[in-house]
């Protein structure tokens, strides 16, 4: 009984580890999937037009969250919804990983408040 349980537990653990490894975004793979993004966000994710956000150097998990929200409609934007709909979960992780590693103009707010 105990052996059977341990086996199941080990199997579950393995399965979890496997998914985690698979889900990790790959910047190199992401670079091959950004053809549509660059028109507005720039090749390196530093959008020039001030209405579009800079993506370069943004946290990858925040970018992925935004893409998932566009895809499932929690965040409403007609243009982004259309693009996000074509991305798989793996595509989202790869594209996010790519932009997160680009040279950034973004930074945290620390050291930029009154008195600093």
């Amino acid at each position, binding site marked *: 009984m105990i052996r059977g349980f341990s086996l199941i537990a080990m199997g579950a653990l393995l399965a979890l580890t496997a998914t985690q490894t698979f889900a990790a975004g790959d910047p190199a793979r992401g670079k091959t999937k950004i053809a549509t993004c660059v028109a507005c966000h720039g090749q390196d994710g530093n959008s020039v037009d*001030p209405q579009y956000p800079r993506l370069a150097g943004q946290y990858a998990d925040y970018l*992925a969250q935004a893409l998932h929200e566009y895809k499932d409609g929690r965040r409403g934007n007609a243009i982004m919804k259309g693009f996000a709909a074509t991305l798989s979960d793996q595509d989202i992780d790869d594209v996010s990983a790519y932009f997160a590693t680009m040279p950034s103009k973004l*930074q*945290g707010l620390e050291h930029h408040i009154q008195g600093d």
Partner: protein
Amino acid sequence: MKRLHLVGLIAVALCAASAAHAEGDKARGRTLVYTCNGCHGVPGYANAYPEYHVPHIVGQNEQYIVNALKAYKSGERTHPTMGAQAQSMSDQEIEDIAAYLSSIAK
């Protein structure tokens, strides 16, 4: 005396023009972002449920910040904390914050 009237008129016209423009005031923005620092100024700080990093906002593009804050304010974009924060901001304050944050791109 007539000249004084003219100066007054010009002053009023200038004020009206700047209000209509609603351009962000960086200096006021710098004071206003004090509140944002609690989350956006903590390196690596994460949102909970679902968990992801609170985004970098310094150096972000001006009009995007304005649009994001107005969408939070109207409820079009939903996030409990950001909705509450944005509802406390006037449109002018949103412009001021966006002007300051976008001005310090690395």
